[in-house]
């Protein structure tokens, strides 16, 4: 090819690659008429166009220099000594090793990552396996002992050494009867059930991973490709060239062969295949020689297995129940299989005991059980990173839809569609727990995701201000939901700045940005600045919408909140009333937004000590939120906590205690235990404990509040001063003057600086500090 010709071809390619499919087909057809040779080239290039190809840049590792020989017997690894090599897998070598010291002697299987394999991806997967093993404790699962790093810096872990035979060979060698075989499979089911209950899918169940020891004990091995359903630990499965993960074709379900996310149903299928093997000494199908790419199609087209038709020793006893159980477990549709491994085991037991089994051949009555569905959701979320992050934000309730709309709006910017798609695809790549380069717990994952994509804002989107502003706003919201207000502020400021440069006010998006900027500043304790932005947003929204409008109501609500942070409760009360009225008119009386207004209005009343008026409002807010959002929602927790505080002030300590404790539990479940919201719960609980004259508990609760606030808020935040003051006061009351002094000192310094010597809090802090210092002396 010469460069002139390439220029022609690549120019056509670039143009066509960016077209929607239909348009592209027409353009290709035109090109075909003009220049068939060029058209052919362009077409084949379009076919080869693959965003994944070369998408992950190269990396270097020490391993390139020399490959490891296998470790010789006697080599020390941590506290172990190598005995011999047991086997070698894709990423690691497994050795038999001994641990000998004064206390005990132990024989272990030592899995060491292979040199040359210690790429990021493999190390993460290796660590994931270790973490998964650590989370499982079951007599039928080989368990993890410990792990570490070899002298050469290679990660390893040690696990129970299982001296046994693959389950199928064990059955044949020991000439087990049908009942004994079924009992063994039940044990395997129990182990799988345990893994599933811990949200782990094994993903590669087959005889060589289900061993039976000499004394007949089943041991499940090799969680090397296992995935975590809810992805708490991060990375489950390996990334591979085409996004497929390794599997064993003869034991894999059709959906697994298609490369779909692993679910518990995939393990049920594999258990079904194992059952087939134990019943007949044959696999239901042989796939040797079938090209990897054809396996999914072949698996889908296989007829339902029929063990009794294979004419083996127990053929007659297989007809009926056992045929049906195998067929149900191996159903091509995951939803038609046994819902749990235990259900499969139950059917086997029922058969053994002559009870009717639950499995019905392709019956309509298949249960889409709660357990499996919930887990499917987990997998579904992790399968798409963008959805994941939205899904996570989804627990923030009302925000989710807004964020979703926002992202949809962003995507709707048709003229910029290509770049947005590229960014989304890239985001997807790094955040995908299966293929991505990011690890660790839900929260960490979203955080990693955000951090990784921040750079794009400044680089790739620089020339697309609208998209830039939209993404910055979106990411700011996600950060705020995660309780990282400083990052949220940075991003929303960026979004507003970019937006200001391209729009003429009043502008809907700019108003949204300003409102959120205000909200974020207020969360950071900068409520005076916040007020300025919120008022600008409110003015803009009033100019854009005459009469009642949802966005105007939102502005009123948020401004009221900001005023109450400044302790201007009369003003906030008035704005809360306006917002409530507007929302009721627009959304009816049972809408979650109305609940928000009720909650905030009640809070303003509470601060003004109008307790009797506040109580029915909190209760109505709680009722609306529970009806709309269920019990497990941060907003529900918020109202429970507020109501608890009110009841505490009214003297109903027991009721207050249980509401606030419940609020803390809900927050901890739905956000995380150290989310800044939760501090509000501990603060109130401290108050309740104090009034119940349980000072140690009060001090402890207050310490928790302080710890959370310190970790998530800027040092000069008024909440922290409040925490110091209250904690100091409680410690002093509990006779712990020594500890109280530094707390009170910090509170006093803050109030003196921020509010002057005559402020009520300053004086209180000063008096308490004096008292504490005196008491410390004596």
């Amino acid at each position: 090819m010469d460069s002139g010709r390439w220029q022609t071809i690549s120019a056509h390619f670039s143009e066509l690659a960016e077209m929607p499919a239909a348009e592209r087909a027409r353009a290709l057809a035109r090109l075909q008429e003009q220049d068939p040779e060029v058209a052919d080239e362009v077409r084949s290039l379009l076919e080869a166009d693959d965003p994944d190809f070369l998408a992950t840049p190269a990396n270097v590792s020490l391993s390139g220099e020399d490959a490891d020989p296998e470790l010789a017997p006697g080599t020390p690894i941590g506290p172990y000594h190598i005995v011999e090599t047991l086997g070698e897998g894709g990423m690691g070598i497994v050795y038999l090793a001994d641990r000998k010291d004064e206390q005990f002697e132990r024989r272990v299987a030592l899995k060491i990552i292979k040199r040359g394999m210690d790429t990021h991806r493999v190390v993460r997967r290796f660590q994931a396996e270790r973490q998964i093993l650590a989370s499982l404790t079951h007599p039928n699962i080989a368990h993890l002992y410990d792990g570490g790093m070899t002298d050469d810096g290679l990660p390893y872990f040690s696990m129970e050494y299982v001296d046994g035979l693959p389950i199928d060979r064990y059955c044949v060698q020991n000439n087990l009867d049908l009942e004994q075989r079924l009992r063994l499979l039940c044990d395997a089911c129990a182990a799988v059930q345990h893994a599933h209950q811990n949200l782990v899918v094994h993903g590669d169940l087959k005889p060589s991973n289900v061993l039976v020891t000499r004394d007949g004990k089943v041991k499940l091995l090799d969680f090397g490709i296992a995935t975590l359903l809810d992805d708490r630990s991060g990375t489950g499965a390996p990334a591979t060239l085409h996004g497929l993960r390794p599997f064993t074709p003869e034991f894999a379900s059709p959906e697994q062969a298609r490369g779909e996310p692993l679910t518990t149903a995939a393990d049920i299928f594999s258990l079904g295949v194992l059952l087939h093997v134990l019943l007949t000494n044959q696999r239901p199908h042989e796939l040797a020689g079938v090209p990897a790419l054809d396996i999914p199609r072949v698996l889908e087209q296989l007829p339902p297995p029929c063990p009794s038709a294979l004419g083996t020793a127990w053929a007659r006893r297989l007809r009926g129940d056992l045929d049906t159980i195998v067929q149900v477990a191996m159903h091509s549709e995951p939803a038609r299989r046994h819902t749990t491994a235990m259900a499969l085991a139950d059917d086997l037991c029922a058969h053994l005991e002559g009870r009717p089994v639950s499995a019905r051949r392709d019956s309509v009555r298949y249960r889409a059980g709660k357990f499996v569905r919930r887990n499917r959701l987990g997998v579904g979320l992790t399968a798409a990173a963008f959805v994941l992050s939205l899904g996570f934000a989804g627990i923030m309730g009302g925000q989710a839809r807004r964020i979703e709309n926002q992202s949809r709006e962003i995507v709707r910017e048709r003229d910029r569609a290509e770049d947005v798609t590229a960014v989304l695809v890239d985001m997807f790549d790094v955040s995908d727990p299966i293929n991505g380069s990011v690890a660790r717990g839900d929260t960490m994952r979203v955080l990693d995701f955000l951090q990784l994509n921040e750079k794009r804002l400044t680089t790739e989107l620089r020339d697309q201000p609208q998209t830039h502003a939209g993404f910055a706003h979106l990411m700011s919201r996600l950060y705020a939901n995660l309780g990282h207000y400083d990052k949220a502020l940075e991003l929303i400021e960026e979004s507003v700045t970019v937006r200001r440069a391209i729009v003429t006010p009043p502008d809907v998006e700019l108003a949204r940005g300003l409102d959120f900027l205000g909200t974020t500043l207020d969360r950071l304790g900068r409520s005076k600045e916040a007020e300025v932005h919120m008022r600008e947003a409110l003015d803009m929204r009033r100019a854009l919408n005459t009469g009642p409008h949802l966005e105007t109501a939102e502005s009123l609500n948020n401004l009221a909140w900001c005023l109450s942070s400044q302790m201007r409760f009369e003003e906030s009360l008035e704005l809360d009333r306006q917002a409530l009225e507007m929302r009721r008119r627009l959304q009816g009386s049972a809408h979650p937004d109305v609940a928000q207004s009720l909650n905030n209005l009640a809070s303003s009343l509470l601060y003004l000590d109008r307790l009797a008026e506040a109580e029915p409002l909190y209760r109505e807010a709680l009722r609306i939120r529970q009806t709309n959002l269920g019990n497990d929602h941060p907003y529900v927790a918020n109202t429970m906590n507020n109501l608890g505080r009110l009841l505490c002030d009214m003297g109903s300590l027991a009721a207050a205690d249980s509401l606030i404790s419940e609020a803390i539990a809900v927050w901890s479940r739905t956000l995380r235990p150290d989310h800044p919201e939760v501090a509000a719960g501990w603060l109130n609980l401290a108050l309740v404990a104090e009034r119940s004259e349980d000072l140690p508990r009060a001090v402890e609760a207050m310490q928790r509040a302080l710890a959370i606030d310190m970790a998530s808020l800027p040092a000069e935040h008024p909440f922290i001063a409040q925490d110091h003051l209250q904690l100091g006061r409680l410690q002093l009351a509990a006779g712990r003057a020594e500890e109280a002094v530094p707390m009170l000192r910090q509170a006093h310094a803050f109030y003196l600086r921020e509010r002057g010597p005559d402020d009520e809090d300053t004086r209180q802090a000063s008096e308490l500090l004096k008292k504490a210092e005196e008491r410390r002396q004596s």
Partner: protein
Amino acid sequence: MNERSEVTRLLMASGAEQAPDVDRLLPLLYDQLQALARKMLRNEMQQPTLATIDLVHEAYLKLVNQSQVSWQGKGHFLAVAAMAMRRIVVDRARRRKRAKRGGGEAPLPLLTGVEVIDESGNGSLDSEDVILLDATLDRLAEFDARGARVVECRYFAGLSIEETAQALDCSPITVKRAWRAARSWLRREMDAAV
């Protein structure tokens, strides 16, 4: 003269009109990047692999006196560093492949599953693929020099679109187009070669 001032000097001598002295800069960066890679990998036990982009950025901080080097100078640095990274990555892939061949028969897998796909890769490619990519890239360079440089920058050095544009002194849009077209051509040719 130490490496830092030597690299800086070579970059300063180049400018908007003047291309850098690749013949002298390249071997210098090759050695320095190798040494730096070993050092960083040894210091970071938790991270047994190193993204090439981190290496390039670190090298820039260590080897270049930023106050003396212009924007173009940094672009030239990135471009030559990308060439060096390509050689380093490909050399390592060659060594790894040899090592594998010489390593004798592996025992049969016992505790791990049949893995349908080779995932011993570097980024998304395994050693053989890296070597094939290197050869295919040479063929591409015969008629699309820029496309080949873009792939060097993007894949081998991990540069962003922006940085690649800076390195090759063209617009990000040009980089994006060249990247996509070159990648498709490479993929097609590499698929045909396997």
